[in-house]
Protein backbone atom coordinates (compact mmCIF):
# COMPACT_ATOMS: atom_id res chain seq x y z
CA UNK A 1 0.00 0.00 0.00
CA UNK A 2 1.28 3.46 -0.91
CA UNK A 3 1.84 6.40 1.40
CA UNK A 4 -0.86 9.02 1.72
CA UNK A 5 1.50 11.95 1.19
CA UNK A 6 -0.39 14.05 -1.40
CA UNK A 7 2.72 14.61 -3.50
CA UNK A 8 3.41 10.88 -3.61
CA UNK A 9 -0.21 10.16 -4.51
CA UNK A 10 -0.10 12.74 -7.29
CA UNK A 11 3.16 11.40 -8.71
CA UNK A 12 1.96 7.80 -8.61
CA UNK A 13 -1.35 8.59 -10.28
CA UNK A 14 0.32 10.65 -13.00
CA UNK A 15 2.73 7.79 -13.67
CA UNK A 16 -0.12 5.26 -13.83
CA UNK A 17 -2.14 7.36 -16.29
CA UNK A 18 0.87 8.13 -18.48
CA UNK A 19 1.99 4.49 -18.61
CA UNK A 20 -1.36 2.75 -18.99
CA UNK A 21 -2.97 5.12 -21.44
CA UNK A 22 0.08 5.54 -23.65
CA UNK A 23 0.80 9.21 -23.27
CA UNK A 24 4.11 9.58 -25.06
CA UNK A 25 4.61 12.98 -23.45
CA UNK A 26 3.47 12.91 -19.79
CA UNK A 27 3.80 16.68 -19.65
CA UNK A 28 1.06 17.01 -22.29
CA UNK A 29 -1.61 16.97 -19.61
CA UNK A 30 -1.66 18.98 -16.42
CA UNK A 31 -3.30 18.07 -13.16
CA UNK A 32 -6.55 19.79 -14.10
CA UNK A 33 -6.86 18.25 -17.59
CA UNK A 34 -10.15 16.39 -18.10
CA UNK A 35 -9.38 12.81 -19.12
CA UNK A 36 -12.69 12.51 -20.96
CA UNK A 37 -12.54 15.86 -22.75
CA UNK A 38 -9.03 15.12 -23.94
CA UNK A 39 -9.92 11.55 -24.93
CA UNK A 40 -7.20 10.20 -22.66
CA UNK A 41 -9.34 7.53 -21.00
CA UNK A 42 -12.43 5.62 -22.17
CA UNK A 43 -14.87 3.74 -19.94
CA UNK A 44 -12.61 0.67 -19.79
CA UNK A 45 -9.80 3.00 -18.76
CA UNK A 46 -11.94 4.42 -15.98
CA UNK A 47 -12.53 0.89 -14.71
CA UNK A 48 -8.77 0.34 -14.72
CA UNK A 49 -8.27 3.59 -12.85
CA UNK A 50 -10.87 2.64 -10.23
CA UNK A 51 -9.23 -0.75 -9.75
CA UNK A 52 -5.79 0.85 -9.44
CA UNK A 53 -6.96 3.32 -6.80
CA UNK A 54 -8.71 0.58 -4.82
CA UNK A 55 -5.68 -1.67 -4.89
CA UNK A 56 -2.99 0.93 -4.40
CA UNK A 57 -4.68 2.78 -1.57
CA UNK A 58 -6.71 -0.05 0.01
CA UNK A 59 -9.99 1.75 -0.70
CA UNK A 60 -13.42 0.60 -1.70
CA UNK A 61 -15.00 2.80 -4.35
CA UNK A 62 -18.79 2.73 -4.19
CA UNK A 63 -20.78 2.69 -7.43
CA UNK A 64 -22.08 6.20 -6.84
CA UNK A 65 -18.53 7.46 -6.36
CA UNK A 66 -17.55 6.47 -9.90
CA UNK A 67 -18.29 9.91 -11.31
CA UNK A 68 -16.18 12.48 -13.18
CA UNK A 69 -15.97 14.68 -10.08
CA UNK A 70 -13.77 11.98 -8.52
CA UNK A 71 -11.92 10.46 -11.47
CA UNK A 72 -11.69 12.90 -14.38
CA UNK A 73 -8.37 14.59 -13.58
CA UNK A 74 -5.30 14.12 -11.46
CA UNK A 75 -6.50 16.86 -9.10
CA UNK A 76 -9.87 15.13 -8.73
CA UNK A 77 -8.22 11.79 -8.05
CA UNK A 78 -5.84 13.21 -5.46
CA UNK A 79 -8.72 14.91 -3.66
CA UNK A 80 -10.83 11.74 -3.79
CA UNK A 81 -8.05 9.56 -2.38
CA UNK A 82 -7.40 12.09 0.39
CA UNK A 83 -11.09 12.22 1.28
CA UNK A 84 -11.44 8.45 1.33
CA UNK A 85 -8.37 7.99 3.49
CA UNK A 86 -9.62 10.57 5.92
Amino acid at each position, binding site marked *: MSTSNPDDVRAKLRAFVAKNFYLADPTSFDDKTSFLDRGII*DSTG*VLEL*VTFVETEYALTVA*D*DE*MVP*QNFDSIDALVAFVAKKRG
Partner: protein
Amino acid sequence: MTFSLDVVRLGSRAGAEIDRICAWLVESVRGTMKRRGLVLGLSGGIDSSVVAALAVRALGKDAVLGLFMNEGESSDDTVQLGRLIASSLGVATVDENISPMLEAAGCYARRDAAIREVIPRYAADWKCKLVLPSVLASDRYRIYSIVARSPTGEDTTARLTPAAYLTIVAATNFKQRTRKMLEYFHADRLVYAVAGTPNLLEYDQGFFVKNGDGAADIKPIAHLYKTQVYELAAALGVPETIRARPPTTDTYSLPQSQEEFYFSLPYDRMDACLYARHHGVSAADCAAALGLQTDQIERVYRDIDAKRAVAKYLHAPPMLL
Protein backbone atom coordinates in the same frame (compact mmCIF):
# COMPACT_ATOMS: atom_id res chain seq x y z
CA MET B 1 -37.00 25.67 -36.69
CA THR B 2 -38.05 23.83 -33.52
CA PHE B 3 -36.28 20.54 -33.07
CA SER B 4 -38.52 17.49 -32.74
CA LEU B 5 -38.42 13.71 -32.77
CA ASP B 6 -39.95 13.78 -36.27
CA VAL B 7 -36.77 15.18 -37.77
CA VAL B 8 -35.45 11.71 -38.59
CA ARG B 9 -38.66 10.39 -40.11
CA LEU B 10 -38.73 9.59 -43.82
CA GLY B 11 -42.50 9.86 -44.06
CA SER B 12 -43.59 9.99 -47.68
CA ARG B 13 -39.97 9.58 -48.82
CA ALA B 14 -39.81 5.94 -47.65
CA GLY B 15 -40.79 4.51 -51.03
CA ALA B 16 -38.22 6.57 -52.91
CA GLU B 17 -35.55 5.52 -50.39
CA ILE B 18 -36.38 1.86 -50.99
CA ASP B 19 -36.04 2.38 -54.74
CA ARG B 20 -32.74 4.17 -54.27
CA ILE B 21 -31.29 1.41 -52.08
CA CYS B 22 -32.48 -1.34 -54.43
CA ALA B 23 -30.93 0.31 -57.49
CA TRP B 24 -27.68 0.69 -55.58
CA LEU B 25 -27.80 -2.96 -54.45
CA VAL B 26 -28.15 -4.20 -58.03
CA GLU B 27 -25.34 -1.97 -59.24
CA SER B 28 -23.06 -2.85 -56.33
CA VAL B 29 -23.65 -6.61 -56.08
CA ARG B 30 -23.94 -7.49 -59.75
CA GLY B 31 -22.04 -4.59 -61.29
CA THR B 32 -19.20 -3.66 -58.98
CA MET B 33 -18.67 -6.89 -57.03
CA LYS B 34 -19.73 -9.30 -59.82
CA ARG B 35 -21.60 -11.46 -57.30
CA ARG B 36 -24.71 -13.47 -58.02
CA GLY B 37 -26.63 -12.72 -54.86
CA LEU B 38 -26.54 -11.91 -51.17
CA VAL B 39 -26.24 -14.00 -48.03
CA LEU B 40 -27.17 -12.71 -44.62
CA GLY B 41 -27.91 -13.93 -41.13
CA LEU B 42 -31.55 -13.77 -40.08
CA SER B 43 -31.98 -12.98 -36.40
CA GLY B 44 -35.66 -12.18 -36.51
CA GLY B 45 -34.78 -8.58 -35.68
CA ILE B 46 -35.93 -5.54 -37.60
CA ASP B 47 -32.56 -4.78 -39.22
CA SER B 48 -31.84 -8.16 -40.78
CA SER B 49 -35.49 -8.48 -41.82
CA VAL B 50 -35.40 -5.16 -43.67
CA VAL B 51 -32.09 -5.95 -45.35
CA ALA B 52 -33.49 -9.31 -46.45
CA ALA B 53 -36.60 -7.64 -47.85
CA LEU B 54 -34.52 -5.04 -49.69
CA ALA B 55 -32.27 -7.76 -51.10
CA VAL B 56 -35.25 -9.75 -52.36
CA ARG B 57 -36.81 -6.67 -53.93
CA ALA B 58 -33.52 -5.73 -55.62
CA LEU B 59 -32.15 -9.11 -56.67
CA GLY B 60 -35.08 -11.51 -56.50
CA LYS B 61 -35.79 -14.18 -53.90
CA ASP B 62 -33.73 -16.78 -55.73
CA ALA B 63 -30.60 -14.67 -55.24
CA VAL B 64 -30.86 -14.33 -51.46
CA LEU B 65 -29.80 -16.90 -48.86
CA GLY B 66 -30.83 -16.52 -45.23
CA LEU B 67 -28.89 -18.20 -42.44
CA PHE B 68 -30.24 -19.19 -39.03
CA MET B 69 -27.24 -19.29 -36.74
CA ASN B 70 -28.63 -20.00 -33.33
CA GLU B 71 -26.76 -21.25 -30.31
CA GLY B 72 -27.74 -22.55 -26.91
CA GLU B 73 -28.29 -19.06 -25.49
CA SER B 74 -30.36 -17.64 -28.37
CA SER B 75 -33.85 -16.57 -27.44
CA ASP B 76 -36.83 -18.52 -28.77
CA ASP B 77 -37.91 -15.38 -30.66
CA THR B 78 -34.74 -15.44 -32.71
CA VAL B 79 -35.64 -18.81 -34.17
CA GLN B 80 -39.35 -18.17 -34.70
CA LEU B 81 -39.10 -14.65 -36.12
CA GLY B 82 -36.16 -15.54 -38.34
CA ARG B 83 -38.26 -18.27 -39.90
CA LEU B 84 -41.19 -15.90 -40.21
CA ILE B 85 -39.33 -13.34 -42.31
CA ALA B 86 -37.73 -16.07 -44.42
CA SER B 87 -41.05 -17.69 -45.21
CA SER B 88 -42.75 -14.37 -45.89
CA LEU B 89 -40.04 -13.48 -48.41
CA GLY B 90 -39.77 -17.01 -49.83
CA VAL B 91 -35.98 -17.12 -49.61
CA ALA B 92 -33.85 -20.23 -49.26
CA THR B 93 -32.41 -20.79 -45.79
CA VAL B 94 -29.79 -22.91 -44.08
CA ASP B 95 -29.78 -23.93 -40.40
CA GLU B 96 -26.38 -23.59 -38.79
CA ASN B 97 -26.29 -24.45 -35.11
CA ILE B 98 -23.16 -22.69 -33.94
CA SER B 99 -23.09 -24.10 -30.40
CA PRO B 100 -20.52 -26.84 -31.16
CA MET B 101 -18.16 -24.33 -32.75
CA LEU B 102 -18.53 -21.97 -29.80
CA GLU B 103 -17.91 -24.79 -27.35
CA ALA B 104 -14.83 -25.91 -29.28
CA ALA B 105 -13.48 -22.35 -29.26
CA GLY B 106 -14.05 -22.09 -25.52
CA CYS B 107 -16.55 -19.24 -25.85
CA TYR B 108 -18.69 -20.29 -22.89
CA ALA B 109 -15.89 -21.77 -20.75
CA ARG B 110 -13.66 -18.71 -21.08
CA ARG B 111 -16.54 -16.36 -20.37
CA ASP B 112 -17.74 -18.34 -17.37
CA ALA B 113 -14.23 -18.51 -15.89
CA ALA B 114 -14.01 -14.73 -16.16
CA ILE B 115 -17.38 -14.31 -14.45
CA ARG B 116 -16.22 -16.57 -11.60
CA GLU B 117 -13.47 -14.03 -10.87
CA VAL B 118 -16.18 -11.78 -9.43
CA ILE B 119 -18.98 -14.30 -8.72
CA PRO B 120 -17.23 -17.51 -7.60
CA ARG B 121 -20.50 -19.51 -7.43
CA TYR B 122 -21.29 -18.88 -11.10
CA ALA B 123 -21.76 -22.19 -12.97
CA ALA B 124 -22.65 -23.35 -16.45
CA ASP B 125 -26.35 -23.63 -15.58
CA TRP B 126 -26.55 -19.96 -14.52
CA LYS B 127 -27.52 -17.15 -16.89
CA CYS B 128 -25.94 -13.72 -17.23
CA LYS B 129 -25.89 -10.35 -18.92
CA LEU B 130 -23.82 -7.17 -18.83
CA VAL B 131 -25.60 -3.97 -17.81
CA LEU B 132 -24.77 -0.26 -17.76
CA PRO B 133 -26.03 2.34 -15.28
CA SER B 134 -28.70 4.68 -16.61
CA VAL B 135 -27.27 7.77 -18.24
CA LEU B 136 -30.42 9.67 -17.28
CA ALA B 137 -30.31 8.89 -13.57
CA SER B 138 -26.85 10.22 -12.72
CA ASP B 139 -23.49 11.16 -14.15
CA ARG B 140 -21.94 7.85 -13.13
CA TYR B 141 -19.45 6.51 -15.62
CA ARG B 142 -20.91 4.02 -18.05
CA ILE B 143 -19.07 1.04 -16.58
CA TYR B 144 -20.49 -2.43 -17.03
CA SER B 145 -21.61 -4.69 -14.21
CA ILE B 146 -22.55 -8.32 -14.59
CA VAL B 147 -25.93 -9.67 -13.56
CA ALA B 148 -25.93 -13.43 -12.96
CA ARG B 149 -29.03 -15.49 -12.26
CA SER B 150 -28.81 -18.83 -10.48
CA PRO B 151 -30.99 -21.80 -11.50
CA THR B 152 -33.26 -20.94 -8.54
CA GLY B 153 -33.82 -17.43 -9.92
CA GLU B 154 -31.60 -15.53 -7.50
CA ASP B 155 -29.89 -12.52 -9.12
CA THR B 156 -26.38 -11.39 -8.19
CA THR B 157 -24.93 -8.14 -9.52
CA ALA B 158 -21.20 -7.49 -9.37
CA ARG B 159 -18.79 -4.91 -10.67
CA LEU B 160 -16.23 -6.46 -12.99
CA THR B 161 -12.48 -6.20 -12.83
CA PRO B 162 -10.93 -4.81 -16.01
CA ALA B 163 -9.52 -8.24 -16.91
CA ALA B 164 -12.82 -10.04 -16.29
CA TYR B 165 -14.78 -7.48 -18.29
CA LEU B 166 -12.45 -7.61 -21.26
CA THR B 167 -12.36 -11.41 -21.23
CA ILE B 168 -16.15 -11.71 -21.07
CA VAL B 169 -16.50 -9.40 -24.07
CA ALA B 170 -13.69 -11.09 -25.98
CA ALA B 171 -15.17 -14.55 -25.39
CA THR B 172 -18.68 -13.45 -26.28
CA ASN B 173 -17.38 -11.94 -29.52
CA PHE B 174 -16.80 -15.53 -30.69
CA LYS B 175 -20.53 -15.59 -31.39
CA GLN B 176 -20.52 -12.76 -33.93
CA ARG B 177 -17.26 -13.87 -35.50
CA THR B 178 -18.40 -17.47 -35.86
CA ARG B 179 -21.58 -16.32 -37.57
CA LYS B 180 -19.60 -14.17 -39.99
CA MET B 181 -17.31 -17.09 -40.82
CA LEU B 182 -20.35 -19.15 -41.81
CA GLU B 183 -21.83 -16.30 -43.85
CA TYR B 184 -18.62 -16.15 -45.86
CA PHE B 185 -18.59 -19.94 -46.28
CA HIS B 186 -21.94 -19.79 -47.99
CA ALA B 187 -21.04 -16.62 -49.90
CA ASP B 188 -17.90 -18.26 -51.26
CA ARG B 189 -19.64 -21.45 -52.40
CA LEU B 190 -22.46 -19.52 -54.10
CA VAL B 191 -20.41 -16.58 -55.42
CA TYR B 192 -22.59 -14.30 -53.31
CA ALA B 193 -21.69 -11.19 -51.33
CA VAL B 194 -22.30 -10.87 -47.61
CA ALA B 195 -24.78 -8.25 -46.48
CA GLY B 196 -24.24 -6.54 -43.15
CA THR B 197 -27.22 -5.25 -41.24
CA PRO B 198 -26.16 -2.33 -39.01
CA ASN B 199 -28.34 0.75 -38.93
CA LEU B 200 -26.87 4.24 -38.58
CA LEU B 201 -27.15 4.23 -34.80
CA GLU B 202 -25.20 0.98 -34.53
CA TYR B 203 -22.70 1.90 -37.26
CA ASP B 204 -21.95 5.37 -35.90
CA GLN B 205 -21.77 4.32 -32.27
CA GLY B 206 -19.71 1.18 -32.80
CA PHE B 207 -22.36 -1.27 -31.68
CA PHE B 208 -20.79 -4.19 -33.49
CA VAL B 209 -17.91 -6.63 -33.23
CA LYS B 210 -14.91 -5.87 -35.39
CA ASN B 211 -14.53 -8.69 -37.92
CA GLY B 212 -17.77 -10.11 -36.55
CA ASP B 213 -21.11 -8.54 -37.36
CA GLY B 214 -19.11 -5.47 -38.37
CA ALA B 215 -17.70 -7.35 -41.37
CA ALA B 216 -19.60 -7.40 -44.66
CA ASP B 217 -19.30 -6.62 -48.35
CA ILE B 218 -22.23 -4.25 -48.34
CA LYS B 219 -24.26 -2.51 -45.62
CA PRO B 220 -27.57 -1.40 -47.14
CA ILE B 221 -29.08 0.37 -44.11
CA ALA B 222 -25.99 1.80 -42.40
CA HIS B 223 -27.09 5.30 -43.46
CA LEU B 224 -30.56 4.97 -41.89
CA TYR B 225 -31.64 5.81 -38.37
CA LYS B 226 -33.42 2.98 -36.59
CA THR B 227 -36.65 4.97 -36.82
CA GLN B 228 -36.22 5.00 -40.60
CA VAL B 229 -35.52 1.26 -40.66
CA TYR B 230 -38.91 0.72 -39.00
CA GLU B 231 -40.52 2.95 -41.63
CA LEU B 232 -38.93 0.89 -44.40
CA ALA B 233 -40.07 -2.29 -42.66
CA ALA B 234 -43.67 -1.12 -42.81
CA ALA B 235 -43.36 -0.06 -46.46
CA LEU B 236 -41.72 -3.38 -47.39
CA GLY B 237 -44.40 -5.45 -45.67
CA VAL B 238 -42.22 -6.94 -42.96
CA PRO B 239 -44.60 -8.89 -40.69
CA GLU B 240 -46.08 -6.93 -37.79
CA THR B 241 -44.79 -9.46 -35.25
CA ILE B 242 -41.24 -8.55 -36.21
CA ARG B 243 -41.93 -4.83 -36.29
CA ALA B 244 -43.50 -4.97 -32.83
CA ARG B 245 -40.61 -6.81 -31.16
CA PRO B 246 -38.48 -4.58 -28.91
CA PRO B 247 -34.85 -4.44 -30.10
CA THR B 248 -32.67 -6.93 -28.23
CA THR B 249 -29.02 -7.88 -28.30
CA ASP B 250 -29.63 -11.65 -28.03
CA THR B 251 -25.98 -12.06 -27.12
CA TYR B 252 -26.13 -12.96 -23.44
CA SER B 253 -28.23 -15.69 -21.85
CA LEU B 254 -30.47 -13.34 -19.83
CA PRO B 255 -32.87 -11.07 -21.73
CA GLN B 256 -31.17 -7.75 -22.35
CA SER B 257 -32.42 -4.54 -23.90
CA GLN B 258 -30.13 -2.48 -26.12
CA GLU B 259 -30.53 0.43 -23.68
CA GLU B 260 -29.12 -1.45 -20.70
CA PHE B 261 -26.32 -2.95 -22.78
CA TYR B 262 -25.22 -0.08 -24.99
CA PHE B 263 -27.37 2.90 -25.86
CA SER B 264 -28.48 5.59 -23.44
CA LEU B 265 -32.13 5.76 -24.47
CA PRO B 266 -34.78 3.83 -26.41
CA TYR B 267 -34.00 3.89 -30.11
CA ASP B 268 -36.41 6.63 -31.21
CA ARG B 269 -34.99 9.06 -28.66
CA MET B 270 -31.47 7.88 -29.34
CA ASP B 271 -31.99 8.58 -33.05
CA ALA B 272 -33.12 12.10 -32.23
CA CYS B 273 -30.15 12.69 -29.93
CA LEU B 274 -27.67 11.40 -32.49
CA TYR B 275 -29.20 13.61 -35.16
CA ALA B 276 -29.17 16.57 -32.78
CA ARG B 277 -25.55 15.97 -31.80
CA HIS B 278 -24.47 15.75 -35.44
CA HIS B 279 -26.41 18.83 -36.48
CA GLY B 280 -25.38 21.20 -33.72
CA VAL B 281 -28.70 21.20 -31.88
CA SER B 282 -28.17 22.47 -28.35
CA ALA B 283 -28.71 20.12 -25.42
CA ALA B 284 -31.42 22.48 -24.18
CA ASP B 285 -33.40 22.33 -27.44
CA CYS B 286 -32.98 18.56 -27.69
CA ALA B 287 -34.05 18.15 -24.05
CA ALA B 288 -37.17 20.23 -24.63
CA ALA B 289 -38.15 18.07 -27.61
CA LEU B 290 -37.63 14.85 -25.70
CA GLY B 291 -39.15 15.98 -22.41
CA LEU B 292 -35.87 15.55 -20.55
CA GLN B 293 -33.55 17.81 -18.57
CA THR B 294 -30.69 19.64 -20.26
CA ASP B 295 -28.10 17.99 -18.02
CA GLN B 296 -29.46 14.58 -18.99
CA ILE B 297 -29.01 15.35 -22.69
CA GLU B 298 -25.54 16.73 -22.01
CA ARG B 299 -24.67 13.32 -20.56
CA VAL B 300 -26.19 11.58 -23.58
CA TYR B 301 -24.08 13.82 -25.85
CA ARG B 302 -20.96 12.92 -23.88
CA ASP B 303 -21.83 9.24 -24.20
CA ILE B 304 -22.33 9.64 -27.96
CA ASP B 305 -18.93 11.34 -28.28
CA ALA B 306 -17.22 8.68 -26.16
CA LYS B 307 -18.69 5.84 -28.22
CA ARG B 308 -17.74 7.54 -31.48
CA ALA B 309 -14.17 7.82 -30.24
CA VAL B 310 -14.05 4.08 -29.49
CA ALA B 311 -15.74 3.29 -32.82
CA LYS B 312 -12.85 4.83 -34.76
CA TYR B 313 -10.74 1.73 -34.07
CA LEU B 314 -13.64 -0.57 -34.92
CA HIS B 315 -14.12 1.10 -38.31
CA ALA B 316 -10.44 1.35 -39.18
CA PRO B 317 -9.07 -0.91 -41.93
CA PRO B 318 -5.73 -2.64 -41.31
CA MET B 319 -2.92 -0.13 -41.10
CA LEU B 320 -0.30 -0.34 -43.83
CA LEU B 321 3.11 1.24 -43.88
